[in-house]
């Protein structure tokens, strides 16, 4: 049985999110360190990138293992201390690399989605 349209859309969005989420998380830390709940709130507010919040922690854990981010504890005026995530040198480099390739990638996809593709040129009408 074919899955419903909403399921298909959700799957397409999930596939897209999988590829770009880590760079969006890195981008959120570009200007200042952020703590987990804050990162998740920003993703939530973005709409399209909102995801089951708990799944971002395994991603953050990998970024930490791959030395793209570091964490530091900071006391808070309200509640428990927060663990802040900050970019490392290689994290910043990875973000810059993604920032460089993304426009070309986005434009290429847009081109495929919007340009009409005629049939094979040799089968076109003689002028």
């Amino acid at each position, binding site marked *: 049985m074919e899955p419903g349209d909403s399921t298909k859309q959700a799957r397409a969005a999930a596939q897209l999110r999988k590829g770009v989420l880590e760079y969006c998380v890195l981008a959120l830390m570009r200007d200042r360190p952020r703590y*987990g709940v804050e990162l998740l709130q920003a993703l939530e507010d973005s709409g399209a990138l909102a995801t*089951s919040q*708990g799944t971002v*922690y*395994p*991603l953050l*854990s990998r970024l930490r293992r791959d030395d793209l981010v570091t964490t530091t504890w900071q006391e*808070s005026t*309200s*509640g428990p201390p927060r663990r802040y995530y900050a970019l490392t040198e290689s994290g910043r480099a990875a973000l810059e690399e993604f920032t460089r390739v993304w426009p070309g990638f986005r434009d290429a996809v847009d081109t495929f989605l919007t340009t009409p593709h005629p049939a094979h040129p040799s089968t076109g009408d003689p002028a």
Partner: protein
Amino acid sequence: MKISADPVRDYLAAVEREASVLPADRRQELLADLAEHIEVARAERPDVAVGDVLMELGDPRTIAQTALAESGGGAAAWGAAGEPARRGKVHPLVPLLMITLSLPVAVLFSDAPAFQLLAFLLRVTGAVLLCTSVHWTAVRKTTGVLLAAVLPSAAIVTWNLSAGAGVGDAPAVLPNLVAFALMAGTSVWLWRARRV
């Protein structure tokens, strides 16, 4: 069902259960991250029910699956992580030998129906094992089955039904040798082309 007094502990226990295949240190890290998140979220939004905080975190199984994928660098790492594959783990030599040896078995014991059946079963089982193996691509499997099993079988049947029938054993030597060479040659090719 027991009514729970501590939904947070129950939630973390569910994550722990679902993440049981994760290495222990990764699992503890994940649980610590989630516990921290819950604590911070509750401190920042004291008016939100703890159930809502847990619901926003999401399904424990989904979180555990994501952690599993991230811990090995994606689904491709499943095999490398030491998870046994459920099928296709047969040594690549097994289907090749079964297919190749089915012919000598059939020829050498051509008077014994039991051995004819054995030869047939060897060839079919070999072909099935070849098709379910993880050691070859789909194209190579198809080519292999066609060349090593289907084509020789079809040739032998054709031979038996036409020219070879009733002539005696001697003229059948050549086609049998050709069929055997085809099977052996294909098996050698498959062996060399296998994925290790």
